[in-house]
């Protein structure tokens, strides 16, 4: 008998590696400095955003240049929860996800009427409108922004235990907590995307990406699928945005809705790493961070290099660095392709 499977040896190895790496990552604060934890927090949150954008653009065909809308609204909802409702910042992160989801409904209603390039610009305009509206919200600092109150940041649940466990100060304990949450978020988001792509829904997504008409003709509801992907992506982006600003503890409309930080960087990470694969954003974020560290002292040269690198990749290796690696080695760490297994075909392999 034969069966359909996505399982490969490399895929199993990845799963085992995750079970080793995640506990190691959780224990890491015991042996590393606060600076490393902050760097890792940055890497993990950028990776989360990149995985989400990759799901949207690489699999869903939804090229949004307005994801900063959801980062910003998530961050502001978290601040509103803490400052106006008196919630604990960690609990208020969930509010960020909900707010992003709520914003995504009218956004999708509007943007899905637009095609291709119009969609990209439409999402950007909505992000700008959201930023300008939030800047009018005087209770949260208006255009200049505000900080999380001292009593809220010193009372985050779990920081006492972390202080005792690792023998660190309160601010460092907060970074460790944020890092753990970022680690959890990236594992859950990547895991969910991986699961999604291997499920019926993923098959439908791949079909839509390759040929919309053909997918419709075999019964895929394209509209519903795009709605689902867009809403899931928005909620996850909102959670990430809220978490990022729990760690910085300071917010302003410019920072929370920055198109450079939350969309340009993210797009570069996905493009350089390889769009349309789960491995791509992982490779991309490592390159991004390496470039950032190497060129940190050269100011805007770093961003220039990043922009030119993205152009070069698009011209000479449209599938990104992971595409090159995978084409040479045939390696798929997160296999989503369905293969026939258990069947010996004479003369084939």
């Amino acid at each position, binding site marked *: 008998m034969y069966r359909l499977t996505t399982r490969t040896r490399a895929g199993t190895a990845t799963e085992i590696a995750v079970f080793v790496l995640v506990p190691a990552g959780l224990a890491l604060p015991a042996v590393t400095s606060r600076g490393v934890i902050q760097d890792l927090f940055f890497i993990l949150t950028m990776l989360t955003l990149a995985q989400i954008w990759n799901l949207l*653009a690489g699999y869903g065909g939804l*090229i949004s*240049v307005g994801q900063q809308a959801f980062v910003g609204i998530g961050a502001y909802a978290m601040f509103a929860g803490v400052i106006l409702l008196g919630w604990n910042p960690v609990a208020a992160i969930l509010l960020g996800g909900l707010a992003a989801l709520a914003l995504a409904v009218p956004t999708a209603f*509007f943007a899905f*009427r*637009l*095609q*291709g*390039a*119009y969609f*990209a*610009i*439409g999402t*950007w*305009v*909505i992000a*700008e*409108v959201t930023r*300008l*509206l939030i*800047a*009018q919200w005087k209770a949260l600092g208006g*255009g200049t922004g505000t900080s999380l109150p001292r009593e809220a940041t010193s009372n985050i649940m779990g920081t006492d235990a972390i202080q005792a466990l690792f023998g660190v100060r309160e601010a460092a304990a907060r970074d460790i907590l944020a890092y753990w949450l970022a680690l959890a978020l990236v594992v859950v988001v990547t895991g969910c995307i991986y699961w999604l792509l291997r499920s019926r829904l993923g098959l439908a997504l791949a079909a839509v990406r390759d040929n919309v008409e053909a997918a419709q003709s075999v019964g895929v509801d394209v509209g519903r699928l795009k709605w689902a992907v867009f809403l899931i992506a928005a909620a996850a982006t909102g959670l990430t945005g809220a978490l990022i600003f729990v760690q910085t503890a300071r917010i302003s409309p410019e920072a929370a809705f920055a*198109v*450079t930080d939350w969309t*340009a960087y993210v*797009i*570069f990470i996905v*493009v350089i790493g390889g*769009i349309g694969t789960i491995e791509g954003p992982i490779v991309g974020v490592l390159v991004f961070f390496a470039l950032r560290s190497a060129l940190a002292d050269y*100011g*805007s*040269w770093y*961003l*220039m290099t*990043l*922009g*030119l*690198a*993205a*152009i070069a990749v*698009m*011209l000479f290796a*449209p599938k990104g660095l992971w595409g090159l690696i995978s084409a040479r080695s045939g390696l798929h760490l997160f296999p989503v392709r369905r293969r026939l297994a258990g069947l010996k075909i004479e003369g084939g392999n």
Partner: protein
Amino acid sequence: MIWLDTLVQGMLLGGLYALFAAGLSLVFGIMRLVNLAHGDLIVFAAYLVLMGVTLLGLSPWVAAVIAMPVMFTLGWLLQAAVLNRVLGKDILPPLLVTFGLSVAVQNGLLEAFSADSRRIPAGALEGASLDLGLVTLGVMPLMTFVSAILAIVALNGLFYHTALGRAFRATSDDAVTAGLMGIEPKRVFAVATGIAMVVVTLAALYLGMRANFDPSIGPARLIYAFEAVIIGGLGSLWGTLAGGIIIGVAQTAGAAVNPEWQILVGHIAFLVVMLLKPRGLFPRAVD
């Protein structure tokens, strides 16, 4: 008569946005290329004109006339060497390439000219105004508006009454069939981008003379320009002017109510038009 004043000032502002948008509209209409670096290229051209004025001591107009062939060549090279290689059915590659270009140009300018805001000195024109009784018009905004109309008349003349324009329209409608008729689409595209960059230089001249600019303002100009193009409809230059005027009037009206609402109301006008007419007001070509 404050509303009349608001309306007229808004229309004149719309002229500037139409100038920002005309080059974009041309390129978008012919090859469906979304150039996300358009705003940054306007700022780049403004620095080019400024250098002509400050380093060579030229008048802004002469500096702009000298900058135009330079920008044409840059646009031609950009299209021939980079953008032609990524144009295709999939809109993602050109979008990503121009996004990369946008960030590269912005930061290159930052490195070369610092974040200080600059202005192209326009001499006596800067504060000059015309009193028409009911409303007072600034000479500079009026000149911008007239230039926008002249640029659109010129582009339309080129588009509808020359052999090159026929090649533009043919390629816009069906690049493959145009190729069979002896038109080389890639060469046509390169010329089109070159011409768009000439219009960009004109837009940059007014941008730089009317207000301060710095390397970071490109993306906002790109959004206004894009809104004007999309409101107007694909491939219609007069539509682009109408779109620019709608954005300009909405912004001026918003600012009249509350200065903080200027940009916001402009965006909302765009969203409303998109809700009512997702393909714009006067679409010429089918997307």
